[in-house]
Structures are given as C-alpha cells and as structure tokens.
C-alpha cells in the first residue's frame, strides 16, 4: 500500500543523511594542498630574487583573474570589459598620489577599491539586465568609452602618455620601495592572500551558492524567489573592487600608468588566463595567470609573433581537450589514477 511505503520512506536513512550533511558542512574547509601555491610564491622570492618586478606583475594578474573568476566562473556573467575596473583602480592609485599628494600605498588600495566598486555597482545595475552576447558587447563598449574619456581629459590623466614617476611612502612606514621589487612582491602577495580568503569565503557561503544557482538556471532562481538582479549587482560590485585593487597594485609596483590598462587586450588576456587555468575553481586564476605570464615573458622576447601564435594554440587546445581548464584536466587525471588503483 502506498501510504505505508510513504511512511517507511519518510523515516530518515541516518547514513545517507549524515553523508549528505557532511558534504555541505566540510567542503569549505582548507585542504593541505591549498598551501602549495603560497609556498611556491614564497619559494620564488628566494629562487628568483632578480625577477621580483616580473613576479609582482604575475601576482597582480592572478588577483585580476581571481576577480574575473568571481563573476565569470561562479556567477556566469560574461564580460569583455573587466579592464575598466582594473584601469579605474590603476588611475585612482596614480591620481591621488599625483594630484592630491596622497602617497601612502595601502590607503591607495582602499581608494581604488572604492572607486571601482562605485563604478561596478552603477554599471552593473544598468548592464546586468542583459546576458550573453549582449552583455559581452555592452561591457566591451563601456570600457572603450571609459578609455576615450581618459584620453579626452588629457590634462588630468596624462592621456596615452600616461602618468610616470609616481612615488610612494614606505609601506607601514617601514619598508621602502626598492629597485628590485622585493618589497612590493611581498606586499602584492599579502594583498592577494587576504583577498583570496575573501573570495574563497564568498563562494562557499549561501550567497555563493545562489550565484551557482544563477549560473546554472536563472529562470529557476526567479521561481524560488531569489532577487537575481540584486545578487548579480552585489557580486559584480565586489569583483569590480577587487579588480580595482589589482589595478592599484599594478600602478604602485610599476610607479607609472598609461591608458593601456583599459585596452581590450587586458580584458581579453585576463579571460584567456582564467579559461586556461580553469574558471569557477578559485585556483584556476593562479595556474592560468602564471603560465600565461611566464610564456608571454619568454616567447615575446623571442618574437611577438611566436607569442600570439602560442596564445592561440593554447586556447584552441584548452577549448578542444580541457573545457574546464588545466585544473579540470588535472582533476580528471587524478580521478582516473585513483579509480584505476582500486580493484
């Protein structure tokens, strides 16, 4: 009889329930292997002491890619204009130093985050009603317009010549800028670590779970009563702030900035990095940015054409054979090995 069956089924199966609870209750815990990228970053500091300026650039791009992962990988927002927030952060850090004579670097990061966040909230509120190709073009167009505004206000922004020769006060009043970039490498690493923990917390939260819901099925999220637009604007704002910090770090480590930070190349490059490493998996930003930057550094010295060809080839191979990026490939390989070992 159906009624007695229903009662039997409604009685909890303790093992299944405990297992299911454990899955959600433990997945946010830090795993031992998660120390690896940070240990490697510290090791790089000692192994390549003369490459720390380049190292800082890599860390900046990791942070930028991480900010894109938050919207693209986790919330499914496609944007080809993320350089807008990177650029706004970069110029905020430069302009408060040059025009307001504010030379303390850490508060410069906060100012950059604030400006980028305001821009993210405003543009997100307008643009996130659209999705897919429409959104792609709108974000792209917004960034180009922003770059052109910067060019028109040449007296203020320095136009395409940029703003060179920025100086900053010592970090925390103690550690001064050095020509080899040692101080700023560790500074960038510390900032990256803090913001990584923030992003990691967000994606494992109930809010992060709703982002996955929006990515997987917007119609259903509306149907379960989720304020989808608000959620999207919120995550877009957070992502913009982090991209702004990445831009500010870029300015501070280079001590100059040009309107090139708004280039399409910058928006597209960070997306390539993320897809290469694996979107929606936090560490994809690390893997993708490091490989992209190191290859670019080596190949573009040989010939710019080699570099362009290599980027194209990597993307084609990734899209054909590793849709979920190098980390996805690694995960599949690991699964294959462990399942092969079992009898």
């Amino acid at each position, binding site marked *: 009889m159906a009624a007695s069956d*229903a009662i039997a*089924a*409604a009685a909890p199966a303790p093992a299944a*329930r405990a297992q299911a609870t454990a899955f959600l209750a433990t997945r946010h815990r830090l795993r031992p292997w998660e120390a690896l990228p940070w240990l490697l970053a510290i090791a790089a500091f000692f192994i390549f002491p003369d490459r720390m300026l380049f190292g800082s650039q890599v860390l900046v791009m990791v942070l930028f890619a991480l900010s894109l992962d938050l919207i693209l990988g986790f919330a499914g927002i496609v944007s080809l204009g993320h350089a807008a927030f990177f650029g706004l952060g970069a110029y905020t850090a430069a302009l408060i130093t040059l025009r307001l004579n504010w030379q303390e670097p850490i508060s410069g990061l906060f100012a950059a985050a604030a400006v980028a966040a305001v821009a993210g909230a405003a543009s997100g509120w307008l643009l996130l009603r659209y999705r897919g190709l429409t959104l792609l073009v709108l974000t792209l167009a917004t960034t180009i317009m922003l770059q052109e505004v910067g060019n028109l206000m040449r007296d203020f922004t320095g136009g395409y010549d940029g703003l060179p020769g920025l100086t900053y006060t010592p970090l925390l009043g103690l550690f001064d800028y050095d020509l080899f970039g040692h101080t700023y490498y560790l500074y960038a690493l510390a900032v990256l670590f803090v913001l990584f923990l923030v992003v990691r*917390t967000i994606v*494992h*939260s109930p809010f992060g*779970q709703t982002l996955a819901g929006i990515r997987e099925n917007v119609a259903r999220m509306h149907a*379960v009563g989720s304020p989808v637009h608000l959620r999207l604007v919120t995550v877009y704002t957070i992502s913009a702030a982090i991209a702004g910090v990445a831009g500010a770090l870029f300015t501070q480590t280079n001590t100059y900035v040009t309107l090139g930070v708004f280039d399409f190349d910058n928006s597209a490059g960070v997306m390539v990095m993320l897809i290469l490493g694996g979107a929606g998996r936090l560490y994809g930003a690390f893997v993708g940015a490091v490989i992209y930057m190191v290859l670019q550094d080596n190949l573009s010295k040989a010939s710019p054409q080699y570099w362009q060809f290599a980027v194209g080839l990597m993307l084609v191979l990734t899209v054909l054979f590793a849709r979920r990026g190098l980390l996805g490939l690694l995960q599949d390989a690991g699964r294959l090995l462990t399942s092969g070992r079992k009898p």
Partner: protein
Amino acid sequence: MTEATSAALEIKNLNKSFGAIPVARDIALALPRGARHALIGPNGAGKTTLVNLITGVLQPSAGQILLDGDDITSLPQAARTRRGIARTFQINQLFRGLTVLENVYLAVAERMRVAHRVWRPAGAERDVIDQALAQLEALRLADDALKIVRELPYGRQRLVEIAIALAQNPRVLLLDEPAAGVPSSESHLILDVIGALDPSIAILIIEHDMDVVFRFASRITVLVAGAVLTEGSPQQIRADARVRAVYLGEEFPHG
C-alpha cells in the same frame, strides 16, 4: 474582503496579449484552500501562459490576481514566491550542474531568508540542510542527495523539480505537466507523490492525461484559445459536448 471567505488564489478578468495576439482572454478562476483543480485544453490554449501570469513571469494587460484576498497583480515574481506561490516547469528547469541536495538547498535558503549571507559557509546553515534533506526523504530522493542532477534519469529529475517547489512551502502550487516526458513505467512514482501532497495546499495542475485529471481533480477548467470554455466537476466536464468537440481526434475518455 475577509480571510475566511477569500480563496487561496483568485483570478479576475485576466487578459494578456502578445502584440495583437490575445493569449489570455477574461480568464476567471478561484482556488479555495486545499483545492485540487485541473487545467486542461488543447496545445496552445494558453495554459503555461496562465501559470506565467500567476507567478509573475509575465505581466497581465488587464485583470487581477488575488492571493488570500490580497492583490498581488503588480508584485514582481520574487515577492509572489515569498507570499507562497510555487510552480514546477513543463520542461525541467533545474540546476543541472549541482547536486540534488544543493538544488533543494537553494529553495530552502531563499525561503528562510538566509541566502544573502556571505560571511559563513553554506554548510553552517544546518536548518537549511536539515529541511532540504527532509524534503528529499519525503520524495524518496535521499539516496540521490549527492548526485549531480544532470546524471539522474529523467523520472528522478522530474521528482527534483517537484522537490524544489515543495521546499518553498507553498500555499498555492502550480504543477505544469508534472509527468511530461516520463516513461509510463515510472510515471506512477510521480502521480503517487502528487496524490500524497499536503491537503492544505491549493493545487492547480496542468495535465494532458485525462485518467490522471479525473483521478486527481475535483474541479476542472477547460481553456481554449486563451479563454475559459467551461468549468465544472469531473462529471460535468466528462459529459460536456463542447469539451468533447474540442478534444475531437485526441484522446478523451468516454463514459
């Protein structure tokens, strides 16, 4: 209008047109608390459109929608959901890349107003997890809790579709062809679940299978070309010559 006399869901003179094409024409419908109401009609009659109008996916051109006597016509979809309207979809609308548990978790978290929380892990919301698991257990989906939805057989996916809607604790539930696409060998699982639903929920079910309609519903509305052709008890509908004429050439049980 008082709470006691008002229907759980009431629709008055609802109209909607896409450009010059009317898709809902003066539709009136009332579901008292605990109603078991079927909505039938040929393909293209506007049944799913009516569900979209009730849930707020579409805005009506004219007319009123009342929930427990309150006018919700101008409310957005999320607000209507929070007031107790839930639906299932004719074609699965699931979070296909997530686990079954996460699918239901999302519905519970939104209902309990904890889904906006950022600073603690999703796994720390034990109430949400417990309620989601209880919902899965009630539909015998607990063993599939950690499976990715896209890897489930279609019949199980249809149950997840219902589990999400029930996790919203609805007062009014709109079921849009819940057994559509499920092989007949498995459809009884879904019909058993529907038959055993909480009797206090007002249910509107869209269904093509007349055996199911006559077994489940105590009232039936026939929708043709966006307008109500007739409404009545199963006996009245079965005997109605106009309904038979509409269904001519299609399956319609005689007698």
